[in-house]
């Protein structure tokens, strides 16, 4: 059981890293507008040309 002397500090280290990342995300204002960040994955960075009409059913939502 003495393995917990190693494992728990490692777990705490991970917690600290997680908290550090979260603090950085808050500071860089990623939580100011959750809607936009949630949508951002849907958009392509650069529109690829040459394959028009890939989605003929596309319609604006009502």
């Amino acid at each position, binding site marked *: 059981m003495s393995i917990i*002397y190693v494992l728990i500090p490692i777990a*705490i280290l991970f917690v600290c890293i997680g908290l550090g990342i979260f603090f950085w995300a*808050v500071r860089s204002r990623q939580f100011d*507008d959750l*809607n*936009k960040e949630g949508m951002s994955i849907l958009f392509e960075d650069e*529109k690829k040309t040459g394959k028009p*009409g890939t989605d003929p059913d596309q319609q604006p*939502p009502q």
Partner: protein
Amino acid sequence: MSYTGCFHCNEAIPADSDFSLLIEQQPRQFCCPGCLAVAETIIDQGLGDYYKFRTAPASKAQLVPDQLQLSNFDSAEVLADLTQHKENQTQIELSVTGISCAACAWLIEKQLQKNPAIHNVSVNSSTARCVVSWDVQQLKLSELLSLISKLGYQASPFIADQEEAAQQAELRRFLKRLAVSGFMSMQVMMLAFGLYFGDYTGIEPEFEGYLRWISLFLTTPVVFYSAKPFTLSAWRAIKGRELNMDVPVTLAVFYTFLASAYATVFDTGEVYFESVCMFVFLLQLGKFFEFRARTQARAATGNLLKIMPVSARLVQGDAVVPVSARRLEAGQVILVQPGETIAADGVVLSGQSSVDESMLTGEYKAVNKAQGDTVMAGSINHDGVLTVTVHQALAHSRLGQIIELQQQTLNQKPQIVEKTTQLARFFIQRLLIIALGTFLLWYFWLDKDRAFWVTLSVLVATCPCALTLATPTAITCALARLNRKGILIKNQQVLEIVPQLSSVFLDKTGSLTQGRFSIQRTQLYDQSYTPATLLALIARMEAYSEHPIARAFDSYLDSGIKLEQVRVHVGSGLSAVWVREHGSTAEVKVGSAAFCGAEAQTSAAVCCSINQQLVFCVELSDALRPEVPTLIQRLKQRGLRLSMLTGDSSAQVEDVQQQLQFDQVFKGCSPEQKVQHIRQDVAKGNKVLMLGDGINDSPCFHAAHVSVALDSGTDLSKNQADVVLLHNDLNLLQELIEGAALAQRIVKQNLWWAVGYNLVIIPLAVMGFVSPYIAVIGMSFSSILVVSNSLRLLKA
């Protein structure tokens, strides 16, 4: 294709129009050239993804952004007032109208990022704000704004007030504290499970000590960092010789923490680190949601500076130069174009126009202004060009005075002592005495060794967790519930006061009425025409006018009518040549009675003459909102005393009174008088609600216990009100009253439970029957019960 609305804005497409564009090889129809141009820009820039992923249709695009107005922003003076300089970049905050979903934010960001002069751009879709930093040498501010307007959004410079910036920073701190207590709770809870099982199956003292030390280490940041707001608030209360809810919270947190730390260091007794962490986390969570709801409400309505005129055109000899409105001085002459906001109080030097002062006076009719008349800053010039001699700088103008009056009343808001605070004070005093008594009892008479632990179980078992959660959880849930229905509450006290209301003051123009003209009666003098044709003809002509009366005819617009030589006669009407279907022409005049050669009928009438012959008269009035009569009826049934407060002194006030039968009517009131009337009512001991929409109502908002603004109202009134109704439906007022009553019922149930539970557990704990474990279970159970009871508010 079943879908027939405009591809861009989803509005109906006029029957005879043909604006279409090939998008991804599909022909798409548009309602107007504005939307077509915007869609073309979006597609040409390769931003077509916007149409794929947006969740709400865009707002209708306006074809011609006002270039003249925009160019005013380029003067160095104006720019310095609006922007911040960082190295060689300029940063500005813009308030953007027309953002309807997250895709809009993406669209604006992408479009602006393509411009090499723009270094950084960030759009917030929930507050409709945009922060841009760019190189002003390469790109003028007006060009930047027109880039955005090409996408169909209107951007205007904006300066966030300090309070708002502070709230945003506070929100970020909240998130961090929440993260710390959340992460740590998970860890400590995990270790606590090890300790729980250790109790049953046996655990080596070596490991038990280790787990306790780790828990202590992990709980420390929660107590000293996450719980800081509670500690500070409790400290302030004690310094002011008061007891608030944060005092027992802090006491419980620290007592439990220190007792557990003591147990860890000296290897005796029990540890409760997981209770400390969970307690802090849950309380933080409730407070965070409440704070976020309020901050968002504030940010969404905080565009106060938009009504303050930003720029003006100063006449210097023959030249007209744009200047910052804040720097205008008495004696200077400014030029005001149609559609612009007048930048300072002054006297008309030349020109003729009608001016909308409704936001300042409550008068719904536009006022005609000619040479020698005074005009007020913040009113909107409708149809003519005016030159105005400035009498007072903006800060001393009527608008400035009203804003100042409102700042003064801000600190005089009638206070209501929160019932829970009173209850807490009562409860805490007794609790402290009982805990002290228990300790003394055990220490001196019963069992010296158990004294400390029995006292701890008294404190943990009665730990005012349920009591403190009772109100905030119910209020947060009620806020969320009302928010979903379109009622934005910025001041949480509202929910406590609304069920006690006894008096309601309502503004007339724009609140009870629609605040715009609609057609009341028509009179036909020549039977060879039908009213429908003539209304369509008038509508077609009025489309050329900026005058507010013109908007009354919008719904009759039929673009099949052909007009030539349309001319706007400022202050009187319009004339045109009507080309009829069979080719004949007729001279048409639409406007005031005198202009059309008729005797005046009513003050707000529009006449129409064809070939100098009067054919048609339309009477206009500011109609009541359709839901008002039933609403007034329901409010009366609740036993509320209703009063109408209005700046209007016309005969329309009597008409409205006849229809609705208020208990009191005050007409022709200045903002100061309105405040006075409400103060008198407050002094009589009534709990007062004020509903209004204009700038002239906003000082009253602080005089009343609860203030409600409408979404159609001015930004200033929305900014100042406690409650904003997001849909233009007054029935929401009824919803608000019902929602608040329901919330109060839940709070009462919660309090009864919390107090009842405490009454049972305290005697047991004092007698030493409650082992600390049972105390923790009891506390958690009653907290869960309170929270789930509050969650019922979210249903329905």
